[in-house]
Each structure stands twice: as structure tokens, then as C-alpha cells.
């Protein structure tokens, strides 16, 4: 079973990395880019768990280590 965790900085928190990449794109002529925020993808391969309990375990991983709730939001996607 696979799971994908998408981690993003919370809205309103300045993303200096995103702003820098955005400026670089604008410098390359992509002036239409009006906003860019950098996040993280964590792909997990799971063994011995399934269904709701697998999701619950991944949620627990997010709370314990994978994300910092002070600055980040996340979504969990179960990929079957």
C-alpha cells in the first residue's frame, strides 16, 4: 500500500524559497507567474496495514514527525 503526504507552508507564512523561485521564473520571461509556493511530497510504502487504519497510521506519522503544525499544513492521499 502506498500513501502520499503533501506538506505546504500555512497560508500567510512568508515563503522566501517560493518567492525566490518566482523571481527566477520571471527573469526567464515567465512574467505570468504571480505566485509560487514550495512544498514537499513524501511518498510512503506501507506493509501490513490497509484501509482506515493505514490512513490513521500515516496521520499519526504526520503529527509525530513528518510535519510541524506551527508552520505547515498537510494532506494525506492513500494510493491503494
Amino acid at each position, binding site marked *: 500500500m502506498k500513501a502520499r503526504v503533501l506538506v505546504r507552508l500555512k497560508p500567510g*507564512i*512568508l515563503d*522566501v524559497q517560493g518567492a525566490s523561485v518566482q523571481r527566477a521564473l520571471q527573469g526567464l520571461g515567465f512574467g505570468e507567474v504571480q505566485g509560487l509556493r514550495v512544498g514537499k511530497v513524501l511518498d510512503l510504502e506501507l506493509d501490513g496495514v490497509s484501509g482506515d487504519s493505514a490512513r490513521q497510521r500515516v496521520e499519526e506519522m504526520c503529527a*509525530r514527525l*513528518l510535519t*510541524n503544525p*506551527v*508552520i505547515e499544513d498537510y494532506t494525506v492521499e492513500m494510493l491503494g
Partner: protein
Amino acid sequence: MNFGVVVFPGTWSDCDFHYVIGEVLHQPVRYVWHRDSELADFDCLILPGGFSYGDYLRAGAVAGRSPVVEALPEFVAKGGLVLGSCNGFQILCESKLLPGALMRNECLQYRCQSTFLRVENAETSFTRAMRPGQILKMPISHGEGKFYADAETLRRVRDQKQIVFRYASEDGRVVKDANPNGSLDNIAGLINEEGTVLGLMPHPERASENAMGGTDGLLIFHSLLGSLVEDGSFLKR
């Protein structure tokens, strides 16, 4: 009183702290490996700077869940003191021993430079040898030292005098130009509500001998020694 210097894979300021405590201050000091959780022998634990576990995921994230850090709440509940510098500050925030988070520097650059700090609270176990408003010179060396907290948390740490050091100009003005990393409210060092855990981004261990360009960092150690002796906490434990 016994000091412990915690060593994670990737820690780099452990030897400097060990040297200052042992050779400059002549106090008993031992290294503590990150898998140890037996801390009863110590009065004060140091979480030094560096890149613990490569700072993978987030700075201090993995170290913040290590056996030694998970043993810290019990250690401080029994009267122990904890000082985290640089990566140690990041670890303390990641482990929720201190509020807020440390993020990438606003300038995007790694900053390795001298800074001036204004003492905002001289009534802690870590700062009692200082004067309120005193200006200290200490170096920083980090890429992720921008303190962030939500508005409610910021209000709380201000009200409870948990902000211990602010980046300031040499003449003591807390201004944007003196802020090397974009830290919220120019926060350079923060203490917990109980006054037992201090985190700061600057390196006191690198400002502890004249040959290093200054000794203001020693004031933290002198404060700690005074607190530990006077409070007798090391005798009770």
C-alpha cells in the same frame, strides 16, 4: 554541578561547549550520546549547534524526537536546566519544549557573522549575571534562524517575558537593520514559561575567550553557575 553536552550525528559545536565548560570554566562536563536517556547525573544539559541528522525533513526535526530529547521534560521537571544554541534552539522548538518554529533566513543566505543582542530579561537562571538592556556581542552561524510564531503565541511570550535576547544595533536599538535573519520581533533567544529551558540562535561558546573576539558568552555560563549554586538545585537532585 555537572554539565552534559548532547551529541547527535551531525552536531558540530559539541567540542567547543565541552572546551569552554571544562577548560575555561573548570566545571565537570561529559558528552551525552543522543540515544542516552539516563540524565539523572546532570544539572544542566547543552544542546549544541550543528546539523543533527543532516537537518533532513526540517532543521532539528529528527533530533527533536530522539531518546535524549524525549527524556528532557522529566529532566527539567526534576530541576535540571537546558540550554540549546543554534541547532539546539531548533531542536527545542521542534520538540515543543519551546514555542514557535525556526525557518529559513529571510535573506536566503547562510549568515555567519557577529551580532549584537539586547538582554530583554535578566531575571532568568541563564541571564542573572547580566544587566537588563545590556548589549552582548555574539556570533551567529545559521541558515534557518528566523523565529516564527502565530500572533497569539507572540503575545503570550511577550507578556510572560519569555523573550530573553533580541537582535539589536551596537547602541541597543532593536531595528530591522540589526536583524540578520528576519526573525519575528528580532527574537534571538527565548525561554520556556517555567524558566528552565533557554534556546538562542547565537553561539555563546564561540564568545568565551578574548582570543575569540570577546567573552560575552561567558555571562550565560556564569549565570547558570550562580543559579545552580544558589538555588542548590544540584544538591536536591
